[in-house]
């Protein structure tokens, strides 16, 4: 892994990757975990190097454009038909999306 000058080392552990995969409901093999953890660390380090550039007087920025209050009128616009909405569904029944049962509760 190349050292980025001035960047602090940020590492993501194999366990953390396994946890994230679990949250994202992605099934990763041991080999994939071994391969992904260092790759994700590289990405995190690259991001960290950007933080190094920002001086203390720069607040964390989430939006590049200096815009606020972009609102829409509360007016109905035409929506999709049920056929259109369901056209990409892997399975449908009773005009609804049929999906595998998920363990756990609704949020």
């Amino acid at each position, binding site marked *: 892994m190349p050292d980025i000058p001035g960047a602090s080392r940020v590492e993501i552990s194999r366990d953390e990757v396994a946890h994230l995969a679990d949250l994202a409901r992605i099934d990763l093999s041991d080999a994939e975990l071994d391969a992904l953890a260092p790759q994700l660390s590289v990405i995190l380090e690259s991001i960290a190097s950007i933080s190094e550039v920002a001086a203390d007087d720069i607040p964390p920025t989430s939006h590049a454009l200096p815009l606020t209050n972009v609102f829409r009128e509360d*007016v109905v616009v035409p929506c999709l038909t049920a056929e259109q909405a369901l056209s990409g569904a892997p399975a449908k029944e009773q005009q*609804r999306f049929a999906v595998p049962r998920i363990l756990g509760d609704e949020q």
Partner: protein
Amino acid sequence: MSDALVPYDEALAAFDPAMGLEVHIELNTVTKMFCGCPTEFGAEPNTQTCPTCLGLPGSMPVVNGKAVESAIRIGLALNCDIASWCRFARKNYFYPDMPKNFQTSQYDEPIAFDGYTDVLVDTADGSEVFRVEIERAHMEEDTGKSLHVGGSTGRIQGADYSLVDYNRAGIPLIEIVTRPIMGAREKAPAVAKAYVAHLRELILGLGVSDVRMEQGSLRCDVNLSLAPIGTGELGTRTETKNVNSLRSVERAARYEISRQAAILGSGGSILQETRHWQEVSGVTLSGREKSDADDYRYFPEPDLVPVAPSEEWVRSLKDTLPEPPRVRRDRLQKEWGFSDLEMRDTIGADALGLVEETIAAGASPQAARKWWLSELARRANEQDVDIASLPITPAQVARIQALIDEGGINDKLARQVFDGVLAGEGTPDEVVAARGLAIVSDEGALSAAVDAAIAANPDVAGKIREGKVAAAGALIGAVMKDMRGQADAGRVRELILEKLA
């Protein structure tokens, strides 16, 4: 398996309950939070969606300005500070009811925060004011609706697969979160119920939601924990969901106090978990254990720019706030001349607004109260629906009373008019005409009926002739029966007494 319970009084003798209430209000905007899809309740499945609320690639959300306005007004009505700058955040989780795989919500920058509201709680000897502190009110969006198919119970355990309707996905929600409610002691469940009822009245007054619990436009999660009495600590809490009526809010809180006290009293510890209220059996059942699955990895929503309400806007919205519920109640009670008991019954029957509108439509306060609290409250009860959802308007109730006042019908006939209007037979006047309910004011017909009754009851007639006027009741009854109730009983009495004088 049923949980062990400790009698309520015993639980209170050993522990102090602390509650946190999370209420979700579905706003009544005509479009969704981030797209122009309609929000009408009860539409055919998946007929109110678009690429944005289905989370299709490339779609972009735009905030509904009306929803922000409603959120600010709710915040102001709860005496909150309004954020001068705040952002939306993505709450990431994977569940089929959320097609984007994240819910657009707010995280550490809620639109409204640090408020309070004063709730009137019924007690054994009247009522008392309890201040509930509001931690925050934030904007978010609703999820789709899942139907679980297969399995024996229809609940998710044992379901084979789920069917999802996304009509509800993206409807604006305001989540109102209280600070821990401490010190309510044995009144904690009553405070919870009173708080939700109070919120409902407040929101109704603002006109920003239908707040109908049975339709899910007001939903309450009850967080509850116990701590050893007098320690002022916060114990491990459970979060009870699926609490769909005011009565359930109170019952669920009471149940959790008894259940948790049994566990703690026998040396056990409370599992931090989600529980589900069971309306029929009146218990809470264990749902999902809170774990690191609640790792939502919030981050600022990059597709929506921050919301920064100007001071002028907030001030102008403040001017639109209606009078607070307590002030309104006091004013109405004075205007109507209701006793404390009458007022309490009216509020308890959820009929304050209905009575108010009926009076505005011309009925006297007592007449308006009488019909809503006797006749209509009973029917709502029998049908197990909200009194407000009965298919009759306050104006129609006022019209029925006007018909009585004009002498067109009497109280007994009025009940049949209510039957007709509620059965969808039309307006009160249409029902009176169609059912032939008008009082017979034809003196000839009335006189003939009185003569017939006198002839058929010579003994009674004799007593009245001798001055026993009280006996007239039997003859009045006979005439009313003959006229199938459609006579003015006062006039019948007069006729009888004239004829037997």
